[in-house]
């Protein structure tokens, strides 16, 4: 008699065992150790004594760090919002593109995924820096404009002042939006692509225009996709490290940069661990909110 493999215990264990073992050994155990650290205290240079103290957490929510948490959440939220605003039309365009164009457009969206984040970030630096491509182009335009002005006998417009595009919050947001856009576009696309086209036709048939159809039919029905796109963008953006580190200025550090400093330069592992776990709890809360929202709207699934 044939049994479902989920009922054959030996098969089940053989299939589940190795990945479970892997997860426990290399994910849960180290995570547990870091968690334990967060209740410890530094003694000496490398030694940590486990004291069960909450001092690290108390310090983590001191105004100095709380401000950085809030700022990180704000930056991640803004990034997510911009990704949504930019990504929704893109996802919509891909959905309604011809089958042939669709494959190419999706490839274009995913292409950056296959390039190392560091390389992409340095490429952005090359574009944004003072002698970068944007300022270079603007400089040429300015110079050309100046020549035209001179020809017309107008007042000289003076020298070009390069824009400060790098090492500030603008650069961080731009970099984060650029890096996270595919995370937003792909779930949106998959939600929009599943949408029954006859619903859109029904809306038009009943007299609604394109805009009303978009906001009354497409957006509400794409809500699950929007929610997962928001979540999947917000979480990595919240923990972003490389982008603020390389593109940001002195005031654009995010919580991941602070955590990194605790583990390295400050050599305060217990405090770093506490900060890490506060970040993780925030992530869990975001996931819980999303799960709650999707349970509230079962018909939108």
């Amino acid at each position, binding site marked *: 008699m044939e049994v479902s493999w989920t009922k054959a215990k030996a098969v089940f264990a053989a299939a589940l065992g190795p990945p479970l073992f892997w997860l426990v050994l290399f994910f849960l155990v180290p995570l547990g150790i870091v968690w334990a650290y967060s209740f410890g205290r530094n003694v000496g240079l490398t030694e940590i004594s486990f004291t069960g103290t909450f001092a690290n957490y108390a310090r983590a929510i001191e105004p100095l760090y709380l401000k950085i948490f809030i700022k990180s959440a704000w930056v991640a939220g803004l990034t997510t919002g911009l990704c949504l605003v930019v990504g929704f039309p893109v996802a919509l365009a891909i959905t309604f593109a011809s089958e042939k164009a669709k494959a190419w457009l999706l490839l274009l969206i995913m292409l950056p995924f296959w390039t190392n984040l560091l390389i992409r970030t340095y490429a952005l630096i090359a574009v944004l820096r003072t002698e970068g491509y944007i300022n270079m182009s603007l400089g040429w335009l300015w110079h050309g404009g100046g020549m035209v002005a001179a020809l017309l006998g107008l007042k000289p417009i003076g020298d070009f002042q390069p824009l400060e595009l790098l090492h500030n919050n603008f650069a961080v947001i731009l970099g984060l939006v650029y890096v996270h856009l595919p995370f937003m576009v792909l779930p949106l696309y998959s939600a929009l692509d599943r949408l029954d086209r006859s619903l859109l*036709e029904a809306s038009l048939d009943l007299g609604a225009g394109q805009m009303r159809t978009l906001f009354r039919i497409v957006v509400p029905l794409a809500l699950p996709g929007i929610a997962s796109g928001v979540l999947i963008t917000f979480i990595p953006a919240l923990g972003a490290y490389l982008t603020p580190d390389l593109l940001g200025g002195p005031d654009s550090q995010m919580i991941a940069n602070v955590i990194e400093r605790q583990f390295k330069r400050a050599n305060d592992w217990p405090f770093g661990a506490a900060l890490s776990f506060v970040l993780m709890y925030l992530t869990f809360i975001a996931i819980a909110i999303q799960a709650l929202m999707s349970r509230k709207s079962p*018909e939108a699934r």
Partner: protein
Amino acid sequence: MSDKPPIITFENITKRFGKMVAVDNVSLSVQEGEFFSLLGPSGCGKTTLLRMLAGFETPTEGRILIDGQDISAVPPNKRPVNMVFQSYAVFPHMTVADNVAYGLKVDRVPAAERKRRVEEALELVQLGGLGARKPDQLSGGQRQRVALARALVKRPRVLLLDEPLSALDAKLREQMRTELSTLQEKVGITFIMVTHDQDEALALASRCAVMNRGLLQQVASPNDLYEFPNSRFVADFIGTVNLFEGVLAVDEPDHAVIKSPDVATDIFLDHGVTGASGGVIWAALRPEKIELRKRPDGSVAPNLGDAPQGANALAGVIRHEAYLGGESIYEVEIEGGRRIKVKRTNLTRWDQEDFALGEAVWLCWHACSPAVLLS
């Protein structure tokens, strides 16, 4: 009825998708108040024609007129037609009442009137009191009623129905068929229905257009389509038919004779044949128009009175029988091995036992029964 200008006119409509011709030079008009049906096998272009009327497809050639106005440049949301989609396309995130109110909100109908009209429409499709339900709490039949109410509440000039009954089970289909027809009488709106189901079209429509491979085959009342088909395709697509290929041997104003190598009898007709050019023609004989009689040894061919002795009568043997309760379908093998379908109503409870498998029978028919087809 025909003095009035038609409500819908298709003028030489052609639609091509790439190289594929979906609709091929169709001209057609629908009168106000009709229950018009577009009938044909799948892929015949009937749905494309309907979608062009709704505005979801643009004709490659030709014009579509509503009330005499060319609507080619009018977008779907500005056309005075509403559609009931095959999938119903009921908005899943709105309540039943919100679904029905959707089109009225677009038209900025005041809230009080909107509420009243939504209730009326729901009442009309017998969904009164279910306005607060969500579509996933409704059965398939109820969802269809929502789609109907949603379209009718807009008081369209024409209601378009795309395969309205195809997704329902047999019993419900029968019931909805009656309801659709009552509904149309009640609201007095012109209905145009696409269907591949000939029974549905015959039962509901006041007129049908039969399409095949993008071409319009015949436009006629259900009765004319069935009794006076204009081609083998229509004769075969509408109902069941026995087709006999032959040539016209006699063609007088008051009678004609078709000789067919398929059958060992003359096919005698009580009317002349117009338009035959002397080539191959076909006689189409419906199964219920053939009478079954016992054929004891030595019996002579029966004669139904209006044909000469020996014509319109075939000797055969019953080879197959399908008992359908109210009627039985027999397959009778005639000389030459061909099987003829014969339908017989079981008038009494013992009728079915009259004819057994392997029994020798006569098949005979009236001179007015065969339809003559030129193509």
